[in-house]
């Protein structure tokens, strides 16, 4: 074996979260190896929309993480090449009927108290922000901090900038452990790699990986479809969605839920997504999901009715029962850290997650209290020990 088979940290998963872990670990002076059984951004990252949102988060630990993360994305947009397509375009959440306004106002007030910039937009000012919005909407809230990146390119350029060793097409088949059960590295389809710390950034497959390491993480996949239209001249300026989206994000229901976020992209196509449903790792097309996405997008922007959808793609957003990611040390396997379970917010939350992981490895002070994200929070709940019966459903 070569001498390059040992490093300070092994990150499993070359999606955006793994890339951010690698980037910040390297900036903290650690040597990093990133492993993925597939390609860079080949999993959930590649099936994401690139949402960097504070607008959809209720006050609490996730919002705090998002605020730090969006500030880090701003820094990264200067450090990384323009190909990542960082656009601080802002978000616009609209209420279609007056009944939706009080809840939206209440949410915005709470968010403002937590440090979010949120400006209420009366109905007559909506066309100024979004000329093609449907007439007759009740009003909205503008969130200037919301932004967007092209997720696959963002992950790839973060990884490249990290200088980490990249081993693709290499699947982890087991973990190397010392006498007292502490991790010493991983075994892969191509040999052994040594490191005192291993980061589980395997996204929707993080539950399986945890199990392989002898740990437990009750992670489940939630399927989301995104619709992509033909290229258009700029028609949608912000990330626009209806107030109902926030309720969907916070929901634990297995039913199909949709509240379409509509947004333009620098390349021209408009993205509409995503639906959310718990169906395991099933990629088959759901016309019900597409119908609702399309109907909501057309309701917000009637001009879209004649616009053609070119394609659609499904991704599996990894989520945990309390809808918070797992970021931190595993309670039972020393040396194992988790950085997964970000659901539909992984692109946005990646930098702050990477920074927390790096600080936990070096022993520096994390940028926020990582307690609420501690992977040990599920240990006591006996009901969740059956964990990933669904997550292990083969693709």
């Amino acid at each position, binding site marked *: 074996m070569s001498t390059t088979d040992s490093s300070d940290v092994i990150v499993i998963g*070359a999606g955006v979260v793994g890339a951010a872990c690698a980037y910040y670990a390297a900036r903290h002076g650690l040597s990093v190896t990133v492993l993925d059984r*597939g*390609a*860079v*951004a*080949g999993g959930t990252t*590649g099936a994401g929309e690139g949402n960097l949102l504070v607008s959809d988060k209720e006050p609490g630990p996730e919002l705090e993480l998002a605020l730090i993360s969006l500030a880090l994305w701003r820094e990264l947009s200067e450090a990384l090449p323009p190909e990542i397509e960082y656009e601080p375009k802002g978000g616009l959440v609209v209420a279609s009927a007056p009944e939706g306004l009080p809840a939206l106002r209440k949410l915005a007030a709470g968010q403002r108290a937590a440090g979010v910039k949120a400006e209420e937009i009366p109905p007559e000012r909506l066309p100024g922000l979004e000329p093609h919005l449907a007439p007759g909407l009740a009003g909205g809230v503008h969130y200037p901090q919301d932004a967007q990146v092209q997720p*696959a*390119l963002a992950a*790839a*350029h973060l*990884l*490249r900038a990290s200088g980490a060793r*990249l081993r*693709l*097409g290499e699947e982890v088949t087991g973990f190397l452990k010392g006498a007292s059960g502490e991790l010493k590295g991983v075994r892969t389809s191509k040999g052994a790699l040594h490191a005192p710390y291993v980061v589980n950034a395997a996204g929707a497959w993080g539950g399986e990986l945890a199990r392989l390491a002898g740990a437990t993480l009750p992670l489940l996949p939630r399927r989301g479809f995104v*619709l992509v*239209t*033909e*290229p258009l001249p700029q028609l949608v300026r912000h990330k626009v969605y209806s107030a109902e989206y926030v309720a969907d994000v916070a929901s634990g229901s297995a039913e199909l839920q949709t509240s379409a976020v509509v947004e333009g992209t620098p*390349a021209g*196509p408009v993205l*509409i997504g995503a639906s959310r449903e718990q169906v395991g790792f099933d*990629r*088959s*097309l759901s*016309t*019900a999901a*597409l*119908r609702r*996405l*399309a*109907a909501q*997008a*057309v309701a917000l922007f009637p001009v*879209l*009715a*004649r*616009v*053609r*959808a*070119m*394609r*659609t*793609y499904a991704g599996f957003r990894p989520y945990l029962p309390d809808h918070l990611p797992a970021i931190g040390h595993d309670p039972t396997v020393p040396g194992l850290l988790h950085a997964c379970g970000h659901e539909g917010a992984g692109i946005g939350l990646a930098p702050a997650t990477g920074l927390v992981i790096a600080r936990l490895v070096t022993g520096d002070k994390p940028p926020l209290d990582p307690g609420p994200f501690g992977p040990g929070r599920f240990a006591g709940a006996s009901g969740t020990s059956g964990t990933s019966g669904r997550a292990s459903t083969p693709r």
Partner: protein
Amino acid sequence: MSAEPYDLAVIGAGAAGLAGAVHAAGQGLSVALLDDAAQAGGQFFRHPAPALKAGRPQALHHHWSAFRELRSRLAASAVDHLTGHHVWTVTRDGDLPWAVHALTGADGEEQRPVCIRARALLLATGAYERQLPFPGWTLPGVVSAGGVQAMLKSGLVLPGRRIVVAGSGPLLLAAASSLATAGARVPLVAEAAGYLGYARHPGALAANPGKLAEGALHAKVLARHRVRLSTRSAVTEVHGTDRVEAVTVRRLDRDWRPLPGTGRRIACDALAVGHGLVPRIELATALGCATRQAPDGTSVLVLDDRQQTSVPGLWAAGETGGIGGWQLAAVEGELAALAVAHRLSGRPAPARVRELRRRRDRMRRFAEAMGAAHRPGPGWTHWLQDGTEVCRCEEVTAGSIREAVAELGARDARTVKLLTRAGMGWCQGRMCGAAVACLAAGGGGAAASEERRPFAVPVPLGTLAALDEPN
């Protein structure tokens, strides 16, 4: 909302679909036959629209009588032939009948969605052309070999006066022969393969004398028009400013790598280029049908002995199970029709099934031998310069695809697409998919692209929004 479902919906009215539809109707099944085009025939039996009043469309077809028979059987049958129907997806909810979602009517205001229900489905969606890019391939005057055939068959026009034909596969000889017959000058047919590959399958060849006769016929036409055939050669560059003025032809080694010092320039005003066909299977892969890599390097549907895919209730015939030509397609269409009738009615399968299977297997063996001989060699990527456009829709060059693989961690067509946009444009990778998959695999050859395209054609959002709720 809906009437009684059909017993069988057939998608595609080429040789496979026509045969499938008429034979299923002959077995007493109610059948809907959906197709994009205004008239039946598919790619092979493409013929001028009646309005053109072509005197003898059969002049372009050696097998016109076979088609005429299928067409008159269709006319005499109770099959509902739904022309101008663009199927965009197929779905099934549990044990309910299949739902075939299509768009019909002219683009724009008049276009409307249609949903056809059927208990069984036969996919006969044919194939499209495999493109391997090379410097200059986007210049006006460069046309596909299949495109030439289509132009001649439907519009009766020539793409130029002096036309070089290049690429690999039996379609080259057919195209060159049609062009010469239609009055074009064909200075050269450059075939990248050696043709020796066939010799390794003498059994398959001897069992298919018809194919030999067909080849001999083309050879005779080409000899009469003094068309030269160079094997192990390829057009590696096209020259011209506004349109094709000349091409460079190079000799190739066994792996299709151009041999240095062998370039020669040939003046021409058009180039017809073809590298065989790629099965159109996106409706099936969207349903999760199993695929395999055929000897020609393309991804094809895995079918059982009676043409059923790995998804129960879904049959396929013709090119979708591997490129094999119209005769094989017609046999498979009939076989699938009998299999569906047997499944739906429970009656014993007719004795003819055995005969059809024998003919299918014989023709399949031949087709696979031919496919292996014309499979692109791994050296073809050496034709590409870094600035050569590979994805025409999104203007992505070979250089940026190579960078995505070497520097950014792409490993397959999907991640190349995500990192470069290659394949995200209008054609959704149908044009560049084969080439991108090869480059993503880090070398040449013919890596099969496993792309999923849930929409077989673009769908207006208003149409999607108006879809019926299930039930």
